[in-house]
């Protein structure tokens, strides 16, 4: 068989190095990434919404308390006593709600959007 000269060898090397690998990403890769980005965006806007909702509720509760203390101090202190008595129920309720949200966002959705291994 004929021996390859330097020029032919260079050409072969160039051709092979310029040839794209046969393997690649799955055909639906772009759709999968887009879905993941959409989910992340939705997650962020939901989080923003929760923060706004918590802030609004806190402000409203503070205002109501303030009004009670100003207009009907006895009723105001009564509500404060009930709140203090049941503080752990309130705390656990909020904690439970946030835990469910966390499990929904982090565990369920991330598993759903996780790409299957080839």
């Amino acid at each position: 068989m004929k021996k390859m000269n330097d020029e032919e060898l260079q050409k072969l090397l160039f051709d092979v190095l310029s040839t794209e690998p046969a393997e690649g990403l799955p055909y639906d890769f772009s759709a999968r990434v887009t879905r993941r980005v959409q989910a992340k965006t939705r997650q962020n806007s939901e989080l923003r919404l929760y923060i706004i909702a918590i802030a609004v509720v806190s402000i409203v509760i503070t205002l109501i308390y303030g009004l009670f203390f100003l207009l009907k101090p006895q009723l105001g202190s009564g509500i404060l006593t009930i709140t203090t008595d049941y503080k752990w129920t309130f705390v656990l309720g909020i904690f439970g709600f946030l835990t469910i949200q966390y499990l929904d966002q982090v565990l369920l959705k991330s598993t759903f959007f996780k790409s299957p291994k080839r």
Partner: protein
Amino acid sequence: MFNEREAVTKVLNGDTGAFESLVKQYERLVYVVVSRLLREPEDVEDICQEVFIKVYNGLFRFGFQSKLSTWIARIAYFTGINYIKKYKKEVLINYPEDMEHYHFTDDNPELLLTKKDAAKYIEQLVLQLPEKYRIVISLFYLSEFSYEEICEITGMPEGTIKNYLFRARNLLKQKMEIYLKGELL
């Protein structure tokens, strides 16, 4: 034809369809960069996804100072490097300055099998090169980036890139000469 300026504007305005087109346009480039850095194919897709999520989140910072492909390739390169540093510490080692003495694992049975095919043999040799050589050679030949663009992507000086290319090419040529002597003579 893909208009990168138009695509970026649309993505920044929340058009997810435009983002999907952008991913389609650059997924091959990202795949080449990531797959040449990581040897484990099962990690490649996850890292590619991570790259495009970074692209999406950081697109507002892209000011068209460079080509979009260069910017995306840079993100892909550093995501791959960080992944290696984080999970595969043993892979990133300091390679000998004297690349002429770089040792290819010729005894690998897979490699011996593929020796039947010169092109596959070169591919196997490329995959055995150190990461930085592999990436430089891939960006230059496969993705057709210029020296300046490779500098921008990898952060390596131009002289180093030229040196890596020269050494890698020479090394591959030497190995090919030895191989072809055995096959074609």
